[in-house]
């Protein structure tokens, strides 16, 4: 516990959170909107980092889990109109089931095979949504009758609050005893088993946690945007952006994923005037990161400070 409190990363994060909370008092509604989306993205990326960085499983289709959560909430709200929290919880549950379905082959497959399955899961979901267009609105998407709030500031604080809660839980997990076991399971499964850990059980747990956070965040996102569409929550490109955000920020740091997401979304906004080419630029930047800075921002920072300490 004391180790945790002494972590400089934690204090920096607290500082940033405090600053972020004050932003609505001096930024425009437009910028707040961009940051709101970035914060939800941050949760997506953190959930991904937990699965990859810690359990060692590469998920090329995080949008499968996010989409499940988002569309469940949206359809529930549109058809039967229960209160928003219920829809969100339902979204989380469905995403959890999806995560389990994804986990079962994962535990028997080697890396690239599993990566393919995750990709296919997204494509399948996309196709299903298009097929059942009557319920889901197909490729155009559907509108959601309720939203969290119409004021930009409220939405911003909802998103920030959600991000902070998720960050605390996920970061805390990563630094806890469970996180340590997860890391060991992901990096050296045989070694972890030799120490008496049921690796399968722990990886399954990691999947479930990642799925729940992804699904809930997805649901919250659509209640912010007021619409649910394939291109925002079930897209392969979006999934890749999530991965890039986590890699950019630094794999296995959890908090780095937030930095990466904010950077990516904000940069994407700056590039919006370029039109369609902005995805191209983002992908190009991401490729450059993979080639030249695979450890990411926070990853490099941590490595440097660790070396200095020794």
């Amino acid at each position, binding site marked *: 516990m004391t180790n945790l409190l002494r972590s400089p990363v934690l204090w920096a994060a607290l500082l940033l959170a405090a600053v972020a909370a004050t932003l609505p008092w001096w930024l425009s509604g437009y910028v707040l909107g961009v940051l709101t989306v970035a914060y939800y993205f941050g949760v997506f990326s953190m959930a991904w980092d937990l699965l990859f960085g810690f359990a060692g499983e590469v998920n090329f289709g995080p949008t499968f889990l996010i989409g499940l959560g988002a569309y469940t909430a949206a359809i529930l709200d549109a058809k039967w109109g229960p209160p928003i929290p219920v829809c969100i919880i339902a979204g989380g549950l469905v995403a959890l089931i999806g995560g389990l379905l994804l986990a079962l082959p994962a535990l028997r497959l080697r890396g690239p095979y599993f990566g*393919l399955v995750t990709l*296919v899961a997204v*494509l*399948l979901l996309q196709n299903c949504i298009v097929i059942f267009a009557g319920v889901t609105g197909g490729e155009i998407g559907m509108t959601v009758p309720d939203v969290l709030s119409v004021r930009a500031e409220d939405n911003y604080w909802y998103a920030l609050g959600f991000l902070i809660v998720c960050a605390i839980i996920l970061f805390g997990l990563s630094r806890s005893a469970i996180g340590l076991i997860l890391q060991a399971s992901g990096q050296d499964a045989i070694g972890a088993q030799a120490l008496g850990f049921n690796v399968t059980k722990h990886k399954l747990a990691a999947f479930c946690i990642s799925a729940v956070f992804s699904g809930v965040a997805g649901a919250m996102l659509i209640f912010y945007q007021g619409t649910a569409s394939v291109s925002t929550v079930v897209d392969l490109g979006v999934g890749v952006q999530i991965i890039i955000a986590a890699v950019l920020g630094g794999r296995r740091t959890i908090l780095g994923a937030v930095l990466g997401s904010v950077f990516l979304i904000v940069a994407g906004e700056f590039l919006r005037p370029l*039109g369609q*080419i902005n995805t191209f630029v983002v992908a190009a930047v991401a490729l450059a990161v993979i080639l030249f800075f695979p450890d990411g921002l926070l990853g490099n920072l941590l490595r440097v400070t660790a070396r200095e300490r020794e």
Partner: protein
Amino acid sequence: MVWLQILIDGFAISSLYALGAIGFTLIFGVSGVLNLAHGGVMLVAALMGWMLAGEARIGTYLGTLLGVLSGLACAYVTYLMVVRPIQRSAAIPREEKEIFVLTGTLLWGIMIQQGMAYLFTDNPVTMRPLIAGVISIAGVRTPLNEIMIAVICWVVIGMLWLFVNRTRAGKALLAASINPRGLTLLGFELSRVYLLAWTIYGVLAGVAGVLLASFLGVSSNNTGQLTASAFSIVVLGGLGSVSGSLMAAYVVGYLETITAYLIAPTLRPLPALLLLVLVVYVRPQGLLGRR
């Protein structure tokens, strides 16, 4: 009547899929790379072929040839600028190299898709047929172009077989897929063998791309689907097995054609995806898989 049409159309599209899938599996077998930019390479070949043949008015045949060469160029860029730098990067730990290559090719594929959409919009385009005209096969009117495409596919596949099994360079390529270390010990530079593999891949994907443009038409939106079809086929047939990919291509091609004709054209890509999921759950090494 419908069944005959399915038989013929299915054969043509399966042959096309086989060409693309064999290239995909060749690259995996020889250099261990799952190229997720596969759809992008085919797209480049298709769109460049279409543009040069139609818009630049240099004729269908020359346009097709240049389209194939564009595909080859794109394959080279994929290898030299994306795959090889990641494989050689000292900053990435060895266990994660595979994943990074996968992510890198995925990103590159997206870049191609977006770039092509920017240059050519995402409207579907169709290339003018290589051979005009229609013949009647037992009462089914089939475009000559379609038959031509199937023939070309098989000729290329046949040439590939001859190359691998009857030429010395081809045997070296085969050996690389069996035991790269053994080849190094015999004085072969693996980097050159890989370059050869990617060259062949570029040609195969390029031909598949332009033929697809000529047969069904392409749009930049298809990119993901093309890659997904290719790896569905390859996983079903068994990663690394060329004959497996061949058989699987026909299974998938016919499934898709049957779905398009008898159920709904929009559901065309679905069976391949479902089949892939089934295979991965039940028999991950596919029909004839080695690795």
